[in-house]
């Protein structure tokens, strides 16, 4: 066990009946960093969280959180973690405030202190107006925020966020991202599972990709993108132009493919700002007329296609919702 790691998993495996939910997964997260565990529904992300948060015992392998063994020292681990579940772990019949006070008291805060902390968190997560309303009537975004607030009652040094933005609208998602980033500036270590590559990209220091219970890749977002392959620039011209391929090639990180009788040009490009403008300018300079220009970012599908060498099956589509992970 490495002293600098707040979370460490060593060859953890878990089987549910016929399904190998996790297959000898090794992972570590350094103190004060965010690891994003990326994978489609059913990849084993939630099983990993359940093992590390003491809810499930691994069949084999060992894991430590904040230096404590998750099986042998489960009670000690529970004092160090905050957990935000995939399906919100809130009491629907209680108000937001009552939920937070309950969690506070059960976490060994005195009643007055638990109440004070609840007020603080309701403010921090912009839930003051809904504080005394029953959670059943909360919107999806509000539930997630309250759920996150509940896991922060004790300012735990290690946080597990299991798909904190799945099913949220874009505004609520951005809001969650801002709040998650602030947690790390406060020194917390985060384990964040997600199905969204952009989320992992936006938040994580390191990304681990899992599929069918196996760890298939890990690294910084940059390393992974390099492994996945760059983005694709796709240009459609109004009429074929002899110099177009050369103009694009200057910006590309690979060779240019020409299709559609010289009308459509595709080339891999490195991700950088102002790429589309540069391409347009280069094409304009040579007098090529552009109908359309698009940059395709690598999607989760591309990640899997690249890492596993297999095209993703329809049930692994990142838009698919509602399949148990």
């Amino acid at each position, binding site marked *: 066990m490495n002293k600098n790691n707040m979370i460490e998993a060593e060859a953890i495996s878990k089987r549910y009946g016929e399904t190998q939910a996790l297959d000898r997964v090794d992972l570590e997260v350094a103190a004060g960093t965010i690891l994003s565990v990326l994978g489609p529904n059913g990849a084993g992300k939630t099983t990993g969280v359940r093992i590390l948060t*003491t809810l499930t015992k691994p069949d084999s392998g060992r894991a430590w959180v904040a230096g404590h063994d998750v099986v042998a020292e489960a009670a000690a681990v529970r004092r160090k973690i905050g957990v935000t579940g995939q399906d919100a*772990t809130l009491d629907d019949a209680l108000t937001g405030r009552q939920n937070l006070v309950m969690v506070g008291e059960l976490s060994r805060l005195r009643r007055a202190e638990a109440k004070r902390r609840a007020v603080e968190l309701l403010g921090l997560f912009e839930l003051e107006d809904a504080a005394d309303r029953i959670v059943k009537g909360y919107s999806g975004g509000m539930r997630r925020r309250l759920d996150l607030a509940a896991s922060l009652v004790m300012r735990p040094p290690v946080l597990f966020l299991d798909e904190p933005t799945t099913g949220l609208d874009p505004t609520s998602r951005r809001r969650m991202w801002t709040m998650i980033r602030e947690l790390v500036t406060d020194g917390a270590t985060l384990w964040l599972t997600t199905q969204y590559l952009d989320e992992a990209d936006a938040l994580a220091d390191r990304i681990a990709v899992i599929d069918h219970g196996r760890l298939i890749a890990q690294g910084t977002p940059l390393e992974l993108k390099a492994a996945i392959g760059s983005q694709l620039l796709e240009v459609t011209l109004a009429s074929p132009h002899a110099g177009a391929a050369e103009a694009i090639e200057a910006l590309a990180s690979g060779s240019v493919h020409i299709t559609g009788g010289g009308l459509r040009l595709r080339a891999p490009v490195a991700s950088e700002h102002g790429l589309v403008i540069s391409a347009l300018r280069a094409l304009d300079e040579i007098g090529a007329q552009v109908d359309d220009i698009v940059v395709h970012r690598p999607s989760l599908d591309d990640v899997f296609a690249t890492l596993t060498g297999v095209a993703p099956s329809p049930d692994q589509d990142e838009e698919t919702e509602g399949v148990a992970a």
Partner: protein
Amino acid sequence: MTEMIATPAELDTATALERVRSWFTDVRVMTWRNVLHIRREPMQLSDVTIQPVLFTLLFIYIFGTAMVVRGGGSYKDFALAGLLMMNLTTSAVGTAIGLSSDLATGVINRLRTLPMSPTAILFGRSFSDLLAAIICSSFVVLTGLAVGWRPDAGAASIAAGFGLALLFSYALTWAMACLGLLAASPESAQGIVMLFMFPLAFVSNVFAATQGMPAWLATIANWNPVSAVTSACRSLFGNPNPSSTIHTWPMQHSVMASLVWSVVILVVSVTAAGHLYRHRTNS
């Protein structure tokens, strides 16, 4: 942040006294949470408020008019202890359903990742259900008094009767908790519990003296713990108690039998519930 990271040594310094205090806090919080649930949906309480009133009126005014109490006395006076026990027994169903519902929701996952005492979830449930049992008893007694039930004993004796009824009801709550933990869903919990509840509540002396039953059924009824508690309550309330003439041990020593049954059920069920809870939550 760093000041929040306690070393293992700090954790172990929690004294026994502190641990006991934390346990009481956990139980209080869980009980309070269950009470809030009831306040949110007061109809959950219908089986300890409306049902006791209806059953009391039904038995006293409809069935009671055709009943003759063996050994003499008014049916109203005979029926009350029986109605008390029947209502307390059937309302214990709520424990199994409540616990099973808790396990079916995401709340349990949050609770299990907190450094709270896991048994507090079970004890909190048992105490909020004890509160429901007290409400249930009050409704039976008030309805009884309104329709003419009169105890004929000292205050201490009457209080002892209610104490015994509530003790048994509390023990039964734990037995129901076990069934709730065994059930796969709240719906199946309801089904399983009803299967136990009906013979327990009705194959007994609650509505009619067991002397009139076929011999084999009378034997079962006389050894039914509900009969012992009902018989004890009738004696302690100073009401007609035909069971006192039956020569089986629990009917001859109904107070002692009630205590023994309650303690045995309590010890077995609390132990079993702890094991079942751990098994259920350790997938």
